[in-house]
């Protein structure tokens, strides 16, 4: 039967009358191309956003954080104990303590809230990729008052590399004869940090760890430990964090990047497939053209169907012949739709006119990704919809009686 269907299909493709160039075929092709392209672009945007967000989160955060429960700081001994334990784990590559504190950054009359991060910049490798995101200036904090600040924060303050800003922390106030005096620290900007994460680029102010300790007035205390894992252990960070917490008898609070962002990614995943289902209705609407196209074909080919039935063709064979014609047009349309979708997606990624609102979406750049499985699922679902929709008009083939056809002819 495949040979016969193939023969008819070949005849259809090379038909003298170019049947597939008919008006209804063109609308069928156009409908499927547009709907498949829409689904492809939507999935690519979600997939690109998710992948870039995950990569950025992993780049700008360490994989595991270790805190002292109850907002206490980690002591020098705790840091040593944790370092010894963590570095003995095969999944751990780098461990380092950091200091964090809220403050205000000021330049003239401009004041912005910021987050101090005291990091040991002298270490060649840190658990978090801080060095790599210093896009202007340098990440070498040679002088005591050198700082690297978020690029967007710098822009909000109207400062750049070489300028000085003041950091003020009411939290770390000193007691003076005149009362409580907030700690103030003047520093010189030597570099700008740009991770792509809006939240970080508008908040971070990096200091050397010893300077940060002096600023927070808690020498020899650390806010937390940052831990970097091997690449293959990154996705099981939540499990490792749980296991190590257990090993320390919950003496430390150990959290992973998944604990902090898991809900976000779960939500993104749900949204992605919800949008996919909704946009699949576009394909369904486009597939209504299949009904009209197949109906028109059957109406036009009544004579051919009658003759073939008289020659001994079964209804099943005839259905397969006319279904295959629709499917071949649909397959071509789906491929075209995928190509158009990939083209539009790539354009959106390359252009700089339409950007995301960074304060809402974390990222401001539009990113796309086209994983094979998404393209495959889109194609299979579109083809399935076409296949099922085509069954409606194909039923007419069984109902056509040869004598009725021949009498009308």
């Amino acid at each position, binding site marked *: 039967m495949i040979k016969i269907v193939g023969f008819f299909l070949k005849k259809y493709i090379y038909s*003298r009358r170019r049947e597939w160039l008919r008006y209804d075929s063109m609308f069928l092709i156009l409908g499927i191309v547009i709907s498949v392209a829409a689904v492809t672009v939507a999935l690519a945007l979600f997939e690109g956003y998710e992948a870039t967000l995950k990569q950025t989160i992993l780049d700008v955060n360490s994989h595991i954080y270790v805190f002292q429960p109850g907002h206490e700081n980690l002591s020098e001994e705790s840091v040593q104990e944790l370092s010894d334990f963590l570095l003995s784990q095969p999944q751990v590559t780098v461990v380092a303590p950091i200091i964090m504190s809220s403050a205000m950054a000021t330049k003239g009359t401009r004041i912005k809230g910021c987050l101090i991060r005291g990091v040991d910049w002298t270490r060649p490798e840190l658990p978090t990729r801080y060095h790599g995101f210093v896009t202007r200036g340098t990440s070498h904090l040679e002088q005591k008052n050198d700082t690297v600040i978020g690029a967007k924060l710098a822009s909000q303050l109207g400062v750049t590399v070489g300028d000085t800003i003041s950091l003020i922390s009411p939290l770390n106030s000193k007691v003076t004869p005149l009362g409580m005096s907030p700690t103030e620290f003047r520093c010189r900007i030597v570099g700008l940090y740009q991770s792509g994460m809006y939240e970080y680029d508008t908040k971070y102010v990096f200091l050397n760890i010893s300077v940060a300790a002096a600023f927070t007035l808690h020498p020899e205390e650390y806010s937390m430990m940052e831990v970097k894992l091997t690449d293959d252990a990154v996705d099981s960070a939540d499990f490792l964090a749980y296991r190590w917490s257990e090993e320390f008898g919950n003496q430390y609070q150990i959290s992973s990047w998944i604990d902090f962002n898991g809900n976000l990614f779960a939500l993104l995943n749900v949204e992605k497939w919800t949008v996919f289902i909704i946009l699949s209705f576009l394909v369904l609407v486009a597939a209504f053209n299949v009904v009209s196209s197949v109906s028109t074909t059957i109406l036009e080919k009544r004579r051919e169907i*009658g*003759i*073939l039935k*008289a*020659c*001994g063709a079964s209804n099943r064979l005839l259905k397969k012949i006319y279904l295959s014609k629709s499917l071949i047009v649909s397959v071509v349309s789906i491929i075209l739709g995928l190509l158009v979708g990939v083209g539009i997606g790539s354009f959106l990624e390359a252009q700089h006119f339409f950007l995301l609102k960074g304060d809402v979406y974390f990222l401001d750049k539009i990113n796309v990704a086209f994983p094979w499985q998404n393209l495959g699922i889109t194609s299979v679902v579109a083809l399935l919809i076409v296949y099922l929709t085509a069954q409606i008009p194909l039923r007419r083939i069984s109902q056509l009686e040869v*004598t009725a056809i021949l009498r009308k002819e």
Partner: protein
Amino acid sequence: MSLLIAQNLSKSYQEAHGRLDVLRGLDLTIEAGEMLAITGQSGCGKSTLLHVLGMLDHADSGTILFQDKPISIKDKTIHEFRNRHIGFVFQFHYLLEDFTAEENIAMPQFLASHNFTKSLKQARELLKELGLYDRREHYPNQLSGGEQQRVAVARAMINSPEILLADEPTGNLDPVHSSELVDLLHQYNRTREQTLVVVTHDMNIAAGVKIHYVLADGILHPA
């Protein structure tokens, strides 16, 4: 054993002004190798009878036995029966417009064997017999009326059916082509012992056939 026996066939159509009975308890026995002609007035039911005998249409009542076995249009494999045992020639050639002469002839064989090369080879043999080999790659609209009808006969013959049913085969041809086609049908009957049932208006054709019935009042009368 008779080739085909029709017993007590009845068929009527519901029309605007009432019921039209075209077959009223019709009986017919066809022996292998016979050539029959059926004539009758227009609208008397000749084509309906042929369609019922060829399993293209169903009778309201009555039975049809083919080689002593009852057959019905409702059988699931009736298309295979039509393909293998029955050949049809219609008044209008009813060739497939998008297919060449040889592809049209090969079609029933291709449907049965699924072997296009073999079917095409056999179609070319038939085209040679008919003197139409040079026209094998021509499309129906590139053939004359006589050529189209001869291609239609070749298509009906390709599976060597037990019975060939021809419905006004010359109805659309000029006298010269009509005579050629009748000669061709006689030739098949003589040389291949092809069983033939020809429904016609043309009394000249009917006169040349040994067994001649007239359909009137829904039954067959010997002429």
